[in-house]
């Protein structure tokens, strides 16, 4: 007895629908990361383990940093991650510059500012001052030398350009694959079944960012797009079995496809779990995030393929037989 043998196999659709509700909820919780929103990410490799709480307190005492997060790195390497959206004064200055209120910068600069040039100059000077003071404090607290610092700074306007481009790339990608899938399968219902799975996977993976509190960044957009590839593999295979082959019953063919499909997803899940463990041990946050997003996406693919795509097409075939 398999999952498609029951008369009520269509009820399986409730599973993806439930997940969809959760996914839509968590997708509103996704926050853009430093590279898409602007901000600073500092990674410091220190000789010994760093007390993150103590460093955070020290930083809060000396600077006004917005959205400050401090995490210590241990295991393979030792050090600390420091992330913040910006220093309060610098953020306010930037806001004033963006809205053209150059004069209001004067109180920050200590002299009168009245042009964009003067404002930019004053701003970069203040930024440099802050950066030096920051590095000095952190290296005092952690004992790390200044060449062990990785500082990533992204201006908010640049981040917005990135975000817009990423969004455009994903939208165009989806429009193109919808056309292509329709070209391959011709029937609207079948094409929908295949395309929805890709959508579903990417959406669930995206919402997992909100669920896990991983920021949306350039390195987490990559796995979202990787999922399109993984998703269509199993869906096209399943659909091919159900639509273009005629042996045995559709249900039997679905089980045959499932055997292959589960092996396909299984290998990928295994590889990802290994990657996740290594990345967790070595504290390579980027790879860890990629692996996590992909894991969620692939679990979603199991649902999108075997509970949604399969059910929709079986239902479609059932109706065709009745006619």
């Amino acid at each position, binding site marked *: 007895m398999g999952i498609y043998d029951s008369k009520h196999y269509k009820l399986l659709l409730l599973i993806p629908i439930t997940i969809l509700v959760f996914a839509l909820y968590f997708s509103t919780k996704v926050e853009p990361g430093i590279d898409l929103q602007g901000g600073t990410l500092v*990674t410091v490799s220190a000789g010994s383990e760093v007390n993150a709480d103590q460093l955070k307190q020290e930083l809060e005492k000396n600077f006004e940093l917005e959205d400050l997060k401090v995490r210590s790195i241990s295991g*393979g*390497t030792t050090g600390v991650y420091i992330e913040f959206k910006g220093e309060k004064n610098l953020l306010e200055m930037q806001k004033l510059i963006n809205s053209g209120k150059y004069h209001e910068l004067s109180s920050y600069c*200590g002299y*009168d*500012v*009245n*042009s964009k*040039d*003067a404002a930019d100059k004053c701003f970069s000077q203040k930024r440099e001052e802050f950066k030096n003071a920051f590095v000095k404090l952190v290296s005092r607290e952690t004992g790390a030398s200044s*060449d*062990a*610092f*990785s*500082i*990533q*700074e*992204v*201006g908010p*306007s*640049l981040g917005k*350009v*990135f975000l817009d*481009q*990423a969004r*455009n*790339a994903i939208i165009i*990608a989806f429009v*193109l*694959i919808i056309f*292509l899938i329709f070209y*391959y399968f011709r029937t609207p219902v079948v094409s929908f079944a295949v395309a929805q799975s890709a959508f579903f996977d990417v959406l669930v993976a995206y919402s997992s960012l909100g669920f896990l509190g991983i920021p949306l960044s*350039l390195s987490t957009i*990559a*796995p979202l*797009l*990787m999922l*399109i*590839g*993984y998703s*269509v*593999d*199993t869906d*096209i*295979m399943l659909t091919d079995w159900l639509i273009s082959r005629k042996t045995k019953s559709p249900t039997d063919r679905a089980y045959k496809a499932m055997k292959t499909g589960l*092996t*396909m997803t*299984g*290998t*990928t899940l*295994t*590889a990802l779990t*290994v*990657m996740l463990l*290594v*990345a967790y041990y*070595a504290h*390579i946050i*980027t*790879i860890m995030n990629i692996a996590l997003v992909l894991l969620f996406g692939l679990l979603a693919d199991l649902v999108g393929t075997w509970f949604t795509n399969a059910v929709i097409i079986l239902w479609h075939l059932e109706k065709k037989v009745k006619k």
Partner: protein
Amino acid sequence: MTLSKIFKNRKVKISLALFLLIGVFPLMFKGLQFGMDFKGGTLIQVSLVKEENTSFDISSVIKVMQSRLNAYGLKDVSVKPYGNEYVIIEIAETDPKVVNQIQSLLGQQGKFEALFEGKVVLTGSDIQSVITDPQQGYGIRGSQGNYEWIVPFRITSQASERIAKEFEGKCSTPQAQTCPEKLYMFIDRPSNAVIVIPTNLANEEAYISETLEKTQEAQSTIPLEELVRESGEELIITNSITDEVIDKVKGKTVIIPEGYYSDNEVALLNSSASKLLVKAKAEDYWIVSALNLENIVHLTPGVTAGVPVTTPSITGHAADYEKANEEMNRVVILLKSGKLPVSVSIASVSTISPVFGTEFVRYSLFAGLLAVLSVGAFITARYRKLVIAFPIMATMLMEVIMILGMAALIGWQLDLAAIAGVIAAVGTGVDHQILITDEVLRGEEDEEVQRSRLGKIKKAFSIIMRSATTTIVALIPLFMIGLGALKGFALTSILGILIGVFITRPTYAAIIKELV
């Protein structure tokens, strides 16, 4: 023996040859280029400040920046446009001191001008070449406390004829060694500007040493008024910003010293001026830094007698050798590279420590190998046949090497996202091999679907082709839009999928037919 049969297969032979050709050889002879994520470095984002109603070619901006970085002595640089408003520069350097110098080089427009009697007689476009041969006068002379640096440059024949005419008969003391008439050289002179200073600063800088150095024993000096006039700018000395001053600066660029005038007065100036520059107090003369004056040279009687000048030079003075060297290099670089078509400002700077890079490569390799092994273990557990796991693992490794080889071949810089692309491609590759395996195995157990094995593999390939094209189509926008880091991801994924579809997949099918 199956093994020898496999190696006799034409497909296997061809793909082994290709494996060497596009995988192993490029990696051995050309080598991989690692991006900043792996080897550390600094990423500088420069925003281009567009003036209204002007258009420019971003590729010329890139050319100038590239030549400045090369002239500075940096080998490993990449300068790329990002849209029409940003340029992204990657350098391998992480030393904060060097990074600062580079920042100042990139943040300058570099517009060279020489003025005579308040008139521009020579610009950067007249420069033919910059001479860096010590035999021809280039270099630093002097001793501790008083260094002089000299950068001669060659100008075009048209320019030298033009200025010969300009200078003719202009020497008021033709019998002396040098004339009192002087040529003023600037890099990034504020054009059409009014300098507004209070009397105490004007008194302080009433006479400017011709060496432009305060510390030097002044041999000869120039009155402030003359200096500003000869620079083609206007000077207003006033302690308070009166209506008259406001009227005079209308629509012009105004330069004032920092901290002398009240907030109110500065606001008044700003509302009247087209642009207001507030210049901080400099180490040497304030006025020299306000004008961006580089050098003053006296005309010689020979020059004013009509002898064309072909190699003028810029000189400067500094108290210590290091500073002299730094200044000289800056001038050489700016003259050599020419000016940027727009003014620029630094938008962001990020440095990645090389300490992280090496760890990164080590762990990435480790994670990759473990992932391949775990896939092998999973496949063995699933099919209960070691012979299937082995070719799949071998194919994975071959694909990785071929993708990296192709990347080396086209000189693509590998970053984190590109590695993710390799993983993606190899991952879908495994999916496809399982598809082929299942199609071949199914023939054994399922009599109803007995077709020729070739037919089954064809079936598998039609699925593979459809899913591969779909994935490639999804990646193309990413590659075209050129989202900085994600471009590498798209490229390696597409390469990997193509290599898979055309090389490794058919070969795997040929092998698996022999094995089961």
